[in-house]
């Protein structure tokens, strides 16, 4: 079977998706990045290969797309045909499953974004800048504090009848506010629901400020697993919020579909065996001019596979060993 592989490497999770030529998603994999994108990709590809052979699926990869914050790095080590920013990738993925889609709310581990679409193509977007309030990392920290598993967060929130008002503008101040509310006797359910409402309020007033939110609205990213947040969005927007299929791996789905839209004549994919090879990534400061760019270099088995990060193109256009 001929397939397109989409890889999304974010700060928290690394996702793999296989899409066949007919445009069906035939395989998804979600693993934790744990701060090491190279290892995560190697582990992911090994698992992918194993799973496929267990299922007796014969897959030939005819195109690879990468997205996420580590798209260039992962693109270099896997030999990607397309490296696309996560905003375009998410928009492409969601519009495949929800026709007539107008708004995408995406909350991931360390960033959150909103994309406005018209006729299936993105016309406006925004991403959170410096602050982490309003992301998955914020919820993770609070769940940890309340000693409840993040998986149960949504169900607990839904049980609340009267969500607590919490200032969720800043993670640090929210925490002190939450301790105060605990001390005056608010129940955990109400506080959890209050956190969900606070996060949504923060998202809508910072990231989504001034954006024209119209239905159909789609909510995706890791945090969309949380039913409490979905309900809080519906309460705040007074509109139905759709959770599309493959909501947690939508970036990878989008990347795969983007390659499928414009398939390469011959893929640059280096094959599954890169998992067994020694991949190292290092950086150095060029020093050739006062710009002093940080050049990043990837070596596979000691041979230079890619260089990037320079402004003038002195290093990135240099001949490679592979």
């Amino acid at each position, binding site marked *: 079977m001929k397939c397109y592989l989409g890889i999304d490497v974010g700060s928290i999770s690394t996702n793999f998706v296989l899409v066949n030529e007919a445009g069906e998603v035939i395989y998804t994999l979600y693993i934790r990045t744990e701060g090491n994108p190279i290892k995560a990709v190697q582990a992911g590809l090994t698992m992918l290969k194993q799973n496929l052979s267990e299922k007796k699926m014969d897959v030939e990869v005819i195109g690879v797309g990468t997205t996420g*914050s580590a798209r260039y790095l992962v693109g270099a080590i896997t030999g990607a045909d397309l490296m696309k*920013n996560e905003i*375009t990738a998410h928009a492409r993925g969601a519009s495949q499953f929800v026709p007539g889609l107008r708004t995408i709310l995406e909350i991931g581990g360390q960033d959150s974004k909103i994309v406005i679409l018209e006729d299936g193509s993105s016309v406006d*977007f925004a991403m959170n*800048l410096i602050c982490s309030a309003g992301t998955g990392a914020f919820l993770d920290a609070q769940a940890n504090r309340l000693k409840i598993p993040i998986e149960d967060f949504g169900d607990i929130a839904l049980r609340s009848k009267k969500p607590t008002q919490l200032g969720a503008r800043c993670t640090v101040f929210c925490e002190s506010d939450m301790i105060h509310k605990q001390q005056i006797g608010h129940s955990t359910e109400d506080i959890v629901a209050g956190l969900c409402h606070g996060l949504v309020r923060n998202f809508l007033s910072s990231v989504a400020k*001034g954006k024209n939110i119209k239905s159909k609205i789609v909510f995706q990213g890791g945090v969309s697993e949380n039913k409490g947040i979905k309900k809080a969005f519906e309460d705040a927007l007074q509109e139905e919020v759709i959770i599309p299929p493959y909501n947690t791996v939508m970036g990878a789905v989008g990347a795969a579909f983007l390659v499928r839209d414009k398939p390469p004549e011959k893929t640059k994919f280096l094959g599954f065996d890169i998992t067994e090879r020694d991949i190292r990534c290092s950086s150095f400061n060029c020093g050739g001019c006062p710009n002093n760019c940080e050049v990043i270099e990837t070596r596979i088995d000691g041979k230079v596979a890619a260089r990037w990060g320079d402004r003038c193109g002195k290093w990135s256009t240099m001949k490679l060993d592979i």
Partner: protein
Amino acid sequence: MVKKLIMDKTEKSVVTFARWGNYTIAVKGLLEQLGMKVILPPKTNSTIIADGAKIAPELFCFPMKVTLGGYLAVIREGVDTILSIQNVGGSCRQKYYGLIQEKVLKDGGYKVKFVDFRATPRDIFKALKKNSGATDWQVASAFYTFFQKLSLIERIEKMAAKIRPREINKGGTEKIVREGLASIEKTKNLKELLNLKKQIISKLKKVEIDNSREVFKVGMIGEIYTVTDPAINFDLEAKLGLDGIEVHREMNLTYHLKKLAFPWIDWLIQRRIYSYLQSTVGGHGRDAIGEMLTFIEKDFDGVIQLLPFGCMPEVTVRPILEKIRQENNIPFLSLSLDEQVAEAGINTRLEAFADVVKNYHFKKQKDLKRQKDARTLNVKKI
């Protein structure tokens, strides 16, 4: 002989001034022609920015921290006088840069003299004359060369923005620009400069271009320092250019100098934007609105606003720009820059914005075609 007279003065001071994009070399040439000894701050990079941010008041605007970092680097090399100009960006906190930097440097234990003067033609002339000891005629002739250099630099910038998205050999234009600017810095007199001008411009004209390529037009507006200095805005113009996007900007040093000399330009802008903003907000706030309207009129495919984090005039007009965006449906991106901003984050936004711009462009074309088809169909019916 002229030069000799000035050289004879004992204990010549070593001056520096804030770096500002490609215009730096023109200003350096001006001061050197007046017989001053100039040491330029090194090209702005992350170390310089971090150095400046370390000692600057945290909530002050970004350009102040950058220029302070630059001063620090050259004070160690023996600079004792800093020329600082007030109000380069209209009336805003820029006015107090000199004052505050002087205090910060003094507190840090650095001994340096600040020559802080206002940006009116008269004050600039007076300050330069006093500090160089040159005659009226010398100052005037140095200014003539300065304007020649400046116009050449700006012309190169403009031409490069046009050629970059169309060039066949990616990166070729950038190389000519870089080499050209370096040789402009080395020119000694007007004659050399005029020769060089011919060379660079003919080189740029010879760059192989592909005219059949679809080119997208984006207008860049916002605060003058971030808009014009490639070292500050992460080479935004070149980055978008290589992605097939032609970047236009009205803002450059000549634009600003013109506004100093002819104050009625401001009245004209005010009249144009009256329905959006009825008063000045300082800096180039009004200009940003006016420019955005111009770009929309010219049927551009997108507008980018650049501002230093916390820039009061630009922050004030941002909601107005958003409103104009919503009225006209044009792609709009506002980027606020400071020492905390990472290049990776900016790149992601720029890439996504480039996609949005392209979508918009093709949608516009499709709509136009549809309208045309409908019209021909109607004619046939009749």
